[in-house]
């Protein structure tokens, strides 16, 4: 499997993402500068990492979404290629039109970094095949703008098509409890129509090691590795 982690000015979790792809997915990983106009040949997965691209100035992800490399990412997605956007990567995906909706300032108006439980909504996608359906996993959140919102029609469509990937919940799996940011329907991550693009606010890439908080995020990166096998 070949992965490309896009480096925007201000990205700061690109190393974390590359480490998860290398150590867990067992992928060959290239860090790709945002100014490139093409992806390395044979790229299977594009990962847009967390961070504060362009300082979150203007709107989170808005400037990065206009980077030269994003045309190549759109073309990759259009061909059915896998794209994973984490945190700022998710914000870039909605700003670039690859995923619907917007990410607003957290409802409590503060940055939040903490352990966070998620409910895995389905396990038949390239990203989640190794989780159980409705499994509750503990990962982490670290963001100031993760409050997902879409208009009523869009929301109805996303829900109707089963495109919610993860929802915030408590340790017992109660959705709508323990939301870190006030997202509508407790949405923590969503898929594109063809389920090849996933955007999520939480950080599975920081939960891949029993010594560093646990391994509940590893399932996502292992699932991606299974695809290629």
């Amino acid at each position, binding site marked *: 499997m070949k992965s490309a982690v896009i480096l925007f000015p201000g990205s700061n979790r690109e190393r974390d993402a590359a480490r998860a792809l290398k150590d867990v997915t067992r992928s060959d990983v290239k860090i790709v500068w945002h100014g490139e106009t093409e992806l390395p040949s044979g790229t299977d997965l594009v990962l847009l990492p967390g961070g504060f691209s362009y300082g979150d100035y203007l709107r989170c992800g808005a400037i990065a979404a206009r980077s030269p490399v994003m045309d190549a990412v759109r073309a990759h997605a259009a061909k059915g290629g896998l794209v994973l956007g984490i945190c700022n990567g998710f914000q870039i995906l909605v700003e670039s039109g690859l995923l619907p909706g917007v990410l607003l300032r957290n409802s409590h108006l*503060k*940055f939040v970094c903490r352990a966070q439980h998620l409910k895995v909504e389905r396990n038949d996608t390239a990203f989640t095949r190794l989780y159980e359906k409705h499994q509750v996993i503990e990962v982490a959140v670290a963001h100031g703008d993760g409050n997902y919102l879409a208009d009523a029609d869009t929301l109805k469509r996303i829900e109707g098509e089963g495109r919610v990937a993860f929802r915030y919940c408590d340790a017992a799996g109660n959705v709508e409890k323990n939301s870190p940011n006030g997202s509508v329907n407790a949405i923590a991550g969503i898929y594109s129509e063809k389920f090849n693009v996933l955007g999520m606010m939480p950080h599975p890439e920081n939960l891949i090691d029993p010594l560093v908080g646990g391994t509940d995020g590893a399932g996502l990166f292992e699932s991606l590795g299974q695809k290629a096998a």
Partner: protein
Amino acid sequence: MALIGGGWGAVRKAFAPGGPSRYPKPILHADFPSEMMAASAPAITPELVAQHGLKPDEYQRILELIGREPTLTELGIFSAMWNEHCSYKSSRLHLRGLPTKAPWVIQGPGENAGVIDVGDGMAVVFKMESHNHPSFIEPYQGAATGVGGILRDVFTMGARPIAALNALRFGDPQHPKTRHLISGVVSGIGGYGNAFGVPTVGGQVGFHTRYDGNILVNAMAVGICRSDQIFYAKATGVGNPIVYLGSKTGRDGIHGATMASAEFDEASDEKRPTVQVGDPFAEKLLLEATLELMQTGSVIAIQDMGAAGLTSSSVEMGAKGNLGVKLDLDSVPTRESGMTAYEMMLSESQERMLMVLDPAKEEIAKAVFTKWGLDFAVVGHTTDDLRFRVWHQGKEWADLPIKELGDEAPLYDRPWVETPKRPVLVADSVKAPTSLTGALKTLISSPELSSKRWVYEQYDHLILGNTVQRPGGDAAVVRIDDGPKGLALTCDVTPRYCEADPFEGGKQAVAEAWRNITAVGGRPLAITDNLNFGNPERPEIMGQLVGCLKGIGAACSALEFPVVSGNVSLYNETQGRGILPTPTIGGVGVVEDVAKTATLAFKDEGEEIVLVGETAGWLGSSVYLWLIENREDGAPPPVDLAVERRNGDFVRTLIKQERVSAVHDLSDGGLGAALAEMAMAGNTGATIDVLPEGIPAHAALFGEDQARYVIATKDAEGVLADAKAAGVPAQRIGKTGGSALTLPGGQSISIAELREAHEGWFPAYMAGAGN
């Protein structure tokens, strides 16, 4: 008119038309147009000198040194170099006594940051620095730029920052400004560190009415690099280009360091324009570009532009290398038009670096900065004349002896008086609380001891994926790269103790940092000190500084825990009222294998709880006395450094042998607070059968005797036997289990109730309206 930055209202008067025009003799050039001088050159009046923070005798020293009256630009340069913040003129004499050496110390004080060797070819670069004055005036930007400055100190040396910590002190929670200051400082620290991408893994938050008018914001950064790839500020080679890197220069922060060297008064809010504005995005780019540049082999010397900006960075690089410096300010990237030499030399605009470059590699270096979208400009070169010369628009604005600018800075042996000793408080004289569990609940829900989750959840403490122990424990543990090695990091000081007895308080601050590192299984290696005090011109304040430094020195020597970097912040005083003496200690230790660290959480039911160390029930200057009895008196607990070392070495060995399942050091709130924290962290209760004998139960539970730890173990018998053999006092006091903390005699409090009290105060306070 814009010769001086905004905010210096008083200085502007010196420029008023018709004002005195006693301009010094022309600075160097007979062809200096006289109308130019008349238009832009103010008289160097005593008022102007005073407004630059220079005392009359200090100005006299300048006149003697250069043999003529200085130009305004030169006066500004002296003001920047000779203020307390940059010259350490009140503290230097006493800082000399600190131990700074050990076999593992690569670089002690005097560089951008200290450097220690942690083995495997890796070095740790770290420092702590205050941003107290700006944070009080403008909390968000003050704290943010404090974080930015200390991160720059670390990556200037070639190290990638892997952790940040901070120690914060606020006024009484009831003071009308406190909530606003907390909110701004915490979001400023988070706003900068989170975007920059460094995990903020630990720190301290304390409250006391003596910080009402002067909060403390002490930020620490820790980075790693290869021990053979450390970059220094010492310039070499004559005629080498001096390159300006990073953000553009504006008029912000002019005289920031001078402000930080003065007391506050009611008009201090007017100094808001001297607070700089941070741009963490620019800093992140600067980090990546700087580290990439260092890989090209083009950097001869590098220095960040911090306090006193271009002035202090260029003077330091030249002076350290025994070279002169000639700057041509026409090339300085500016973001405002019409900036004068004076303004450019004193601007404290953030996210800037100065570098001496290998001229053969200029194009390679420039390409790196162009890629990251940052400014790269040759603004001068090194010379062989040991002069510091500043040119702008074809004229020379300053020509000063470069070595003397630093070396001849005033050095004061200020008068000081020893802090009177307080009597030792006898435990029996402090009345018992009506309920021990009630007192415990009061303590752990107090501002001082309550959970600081509200604060640290606003800091990204997980980025980089190496945070082995998150905030809330004794010391944070971060893994170095893929391990197994890691660092144990902590910030400590107990200002109450320093106020009561500066010598013992200084010792205790170092001992507690050492103990916290030990409690997670780390081997303490070195410290950075951030010395926050009031006005040193008052002998009793100077006495606090001298006493604390003696105590710090004694503890560093005895514990082989040298000082490798630091910062002094004086004049933390408003309307004659000083802060509690607060020498914050940032400690760094190494953990050989992060899989073998200890945490404070009780993990299993039925384990034996052992108290290590001697308990005399010391209530003098304790949290109990302060918060329950409303008294702040009595001598603080003495620190026996030999005992500290013996007990700590014993505990560290137990952790290494994996014979303990939980370890917690005892500090504020004593045994009671420690047991509550261990129970809450592990969601496992405990039954305490016996307390140290011969003293009242409240003294046993809340006394703050030093050099103590609580451990949980399955092998109490073996641990107690080993303790006896090592001469370490230890006693079994109870067993883990259940969902409550039960004391001898049957008084009990549930973990749920403890947690609600402990976690409740901070969010409720911050959500509260009014006071």
